[in-house]
């Protein structure tokens, strides 16, 4: 007999922000039908209003740490932070879209609904406490994006972009489902904390070795592949430049931060809560230990993530150097930035084993908290910075999509000093120069990785960020040190785009100078996860 939980037991209010947004979007779809074609700005305003409401509803999550819907769903500081990132990102995206969609002749009210559906998908991802929820969230965040990428339907590039993203995305989803099935087969559950307990034993004390290890490892690999695709990690990044270039620019901007935040939220949930203690050669590692001794070993997936992170940072940065189209350069650089966050995920995989008594060991992923905080703050910084950079690119973009070449930035500091100054600041933030939010993110991630003993990976990280300075600085060179060939007004420099740039600039500056604002929000993240697990 199936035990049907009562409505109160579902504890739905915990999931309120996401549910509100999903419901609102459904209503918005209908409301939009009655908004005349030339007044779609109303839809945009309604969208922003809904996002602001969701932002407020999300605030209690930071102190909650409660589960909902039979423990499939959780609201904690982690989820709250992801929601905050994605809601802010979506607000900026809407500001960017209003004029762009109109002047490109692709203004549809449905765009905003699609965006909101995707946002609620990412929010569910941040709160996922179960592989099934991760999967549903993955689909909910992806499917609207496929449509949005192809929105510029009279342009072949945009169509190609949508189809490419869809086919590869479908593949990735298949990988995820297969991986989840294998993990279920090995542990008998899809609930992440229960997977954790199945691997480590209750209270993190390992009694015996897990016989189904091989399925777990293959399952974990497949999950990494699937989510690696979403975050555009090398070698699953092939779709990125084409899709980013073909999609309408606001969609690209949102994909580069939103879909990335969603993918990383999923990856971090699975790795930190589900699989941190997946150590294959456990028996060999502990063989010679004395009672009371502590050693650190890598988890089964750490080496894989190490390699992916290194490849992503190297490849993304080096290919970005040779780009002359700034939009495409930002696409490749967004691959590189995924590499830095993957470095934090890899740091989670450093496991500390202590021998408590004979055949009795405790295992802890000691760096999970600092890695999680690093990854999330980096995502926040990247969201502001990259959306800001895209906002500036869009303000230069002509209606036919031209105007985003490196040379089009020449002399921008004379034509539009304020925009140029903010763009320069975004570029410095992407490099990771101090006083910008980008520095704080890089600093936290490098710190976590060094403490976790991933020193060669960190060296690759700092060297590639020095390499990245080369192509980011080139934009500053063109804006400030070269004279303009063109003098015509930037068509995209509309008030809404300016608002977006200023919001992004403020975020980049404020979190650069006062990182404690972000870190204080995450102060309880580690403790909340620990309560969940033990």
């Amino acid at each position, binding site marked *: 007999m199936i035990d049907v939980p009562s409505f109160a037991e579902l504890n739905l209010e915990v999931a309120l922000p996401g549910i509100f947004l999903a419901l609102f979007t459904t209503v918005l779809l209908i409301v939009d039908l009655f908004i005349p074609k030339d007044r779609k700005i109303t839809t945009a305003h309604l969208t922003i209003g809904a996002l602001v409401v969701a932002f407020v509803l999300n605030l209690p999550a930071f102190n909650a740490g409660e589960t909902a819907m039979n423990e499939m769903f959780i609201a904690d500081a982690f989820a709250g932070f992801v929601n905050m990132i994605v809601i802010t990102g979506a607000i900026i995206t809407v500001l960017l879209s209003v004029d762009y969609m109109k002047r490109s002749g692709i203004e549809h009210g449905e765009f905003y609904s699609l965006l909101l559906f995707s946002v609620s998908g990412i929010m569910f991802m941040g709160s996922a406490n179960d592989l099934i929820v991760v999967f549903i969230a993955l689909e909910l965040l992806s499917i609207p994006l496929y449509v949005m990428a192809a929105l510029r339907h009279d342009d072949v590039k945009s169509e190609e972009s949508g189809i490419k993203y869809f086919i590869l995305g479908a593949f990735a989803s298949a990988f995820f489902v297969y991986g989840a099935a294998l993990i279920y087969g090995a542990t008998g559950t899809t609930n992440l904390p229960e997977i954790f307990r199945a691997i480590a034993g209750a209270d993190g004390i390992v009694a015996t070795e897990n016989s189904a290890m091989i399925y777990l490892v293959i399952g974990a690999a497949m999950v990494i592949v699937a989510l690696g695709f979403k975050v555009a990690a090398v070698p699953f990044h092939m779709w990125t430049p084409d899709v980013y270039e073909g999609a309408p620019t606001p969609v690209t901007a949102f994909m580069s931060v939103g879909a990335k935040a969603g993918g990383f939220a999923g990856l971090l949930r699975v790795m930190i809560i589900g699989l941190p203690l997946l150590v294959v050669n456990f028996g060999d590692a502990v063989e010679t230990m004395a009672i009371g001794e502590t050693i650190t070993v890598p988890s089964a997936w750490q080496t894989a993530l190490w390699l992916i992170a290194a490849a992503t940072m190297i490849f993304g940065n080096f290919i970005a150097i040779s780009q002359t189209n700034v939009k495409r350069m930002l696409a490749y650089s967004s691959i590189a930035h995924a590499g830095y966050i993957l470095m934090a995920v890899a740091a989670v995989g450093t496991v500390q084993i202590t021998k408590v008594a004979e055949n009795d060991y405790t295992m802890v992923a000691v760096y999970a908290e600092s890695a999680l905080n690093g990854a999330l703050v980096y995502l926040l910084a990247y969201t502001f910075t990259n959306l800001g950079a895209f906002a500036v690119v869009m303000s230069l973009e002509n209606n036919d999509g031209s105007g985003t070449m490196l040379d089009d930035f020449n002399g921008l500091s004379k034509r539009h000093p304020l925009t140029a100054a903010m763009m320069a600041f975004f570029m410095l933030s992407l490099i990771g120069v101090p006083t910008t939010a980008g520095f704080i993110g890089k600093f936290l991630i490098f710190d976590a990785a060094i403490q976790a003993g991933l020193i060669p990976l960190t060296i690759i990280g700092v060297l590639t960020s020095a390499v990245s300075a*080369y192509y980011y600085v080139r934009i500053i060179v063109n804006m400030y040190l070269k004279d303009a060939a063109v003098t015509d007004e930037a068509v995209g420099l509309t008030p809404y785009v300016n608002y977006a740039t200023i919001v992004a600039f403020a975020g980049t500056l404020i979190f650069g100078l006062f990182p404690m604002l972000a870190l204080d929000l995450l102060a309880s993240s580690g403790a909340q996860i620990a309560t969940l697990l033990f």
Partner: protein
Amino acid sequence: MEFSSSLSLTTITLFLPMVGFTILLFMNEQKDKEAIKWTAFGFSVATFIASLLMAFQFDNNDSGLQLAQRINWLPSLGISYFVGVDGLSMLLVLLSTVIMPIAIFASFNAGVIEERGRVKLYYLFMLLLEWAMIGVFVVQDLIIFYIFWEVTLVPMYFLIGIWGAENRVYAAVKFFLYTMAGSVLMLLALLYVGGQAGTFAVPEIVAQVQSGQLSFPMDGIFSTQSFLFLGFLIAFAIKVPVWPLHSWLPDAHVQAPTAGSVILAGVLLKMGTYGMVRFCLPMFPQASVEWAPIIAALGVIGIIYGAWVSFAQTDIKKLVAYSSVSHLGFVVLGIFSLTSAGIQGATLQMISHGVSTGGLFLLVGMLYERRHTKLMAAYGGIWKVMPLFGGISLVVSLSSMGLPGLNGFVGEFTILLGTLGSDVLGTLFALFATAGVIMAAVYILYMFQKVYMGEVDKAENKNLPDMNWQEVAVMVPILLLIFWIGLQPSAWFDVMDATANALVNQLQPHIEAVKNSGVPTAFHDLMMHIWA
């Protein structure tokens, strides 16, 4: 250690330029052009006065941190806003605050700024630069230090890139990338150190190292401490620049506008040598001792190489730029002699070089304003046309050459004394370095002869106006310092004596250990054989 969190004079000095920066932001470029200049100048003078007040409150007998202030910034990670000065940083703060008003005042009539416009941006960057430079010298927290260190890069990059000479973009980008590459390795090393120590406050880390509570393994050149030491050292060596990492410097100097060169030579290069004394020596004492002969050898190579290449230059500015490589070689040699005399000499040489090379760049800038060329061949007999200018140039050139009685001599002499008394370096180091002093005389006098002496054989040079009152006003503080340091060096040594002695006392056990140990490391062994 507990430090007051109430507002200290150091904080006031540090943030005065920032106040000016904020006010400047809201001024109108077209309407208040003159006001912008004078506001920037006013705030740099105010900063200077604040730093003088610091110097009056400074107690020469105290070797520790003074005028300190500490506020938690990110307590969970052990990062705090922590500022204070000791004998070494006090002098460098004064150097920065003296050079800055001079550089700003010298920019008032610079042709290039009038021509390229963007006056407000220029002075914004100047104040930002001053803030960052003072920050580098006063902060006592590794992360905040790194922040200021990197921030100095940005305004200097723009100063070279926007208001520089023909090849400015190349020079600016090279400057940025070179320095950036060095400093990311330092970030790595300082994260590791901070992680191990559990705090990023330098005095606490040094105390832990001294008590043995925190020790980085040092057995041979491929050990943790060695790598950490190099992580810091390479960043500093690029900034100094130590041969063979110097190739960005001539480009940056030649392309930079006059004020940019003055600040670059006067203060920015000293950030590197200051970093060596402040971070490398006390945090990694064993590695410092082990590596001292090698780094000092690079310093000596720099002395000779810089002098040699200077002699071959046809461009006056390039000559002065390469002479910086030579002069800073002395500073590096002094620091890695690991003696109190060497370190004090090196610090005084940092000040001296800032004053005399800054002065030389100002003089070259004045010539350039009149003739728009920096080639020596275009001049000749300038003293006859511009007697006042010629006289002042002679004093500054002689000071740069190291004439006794002027400032350059004191530092170089003390460094050589320190080198001779050093337990880690042999006499050969001093011998080669002395050769550098002689070579300096050769290239400086050669330049002086070409430009100032002889007949006025070019028609364009016949009617050059002599210095105006603004130009004289700029040079007066430089001349005062040249004579003051040269004639009364004890006043300067008194400030840093206690700090330098404390630092060397801390290194002494490690120096003794290397001296007495039967099995020095391979590298050390090799160097001792070659040089001793």
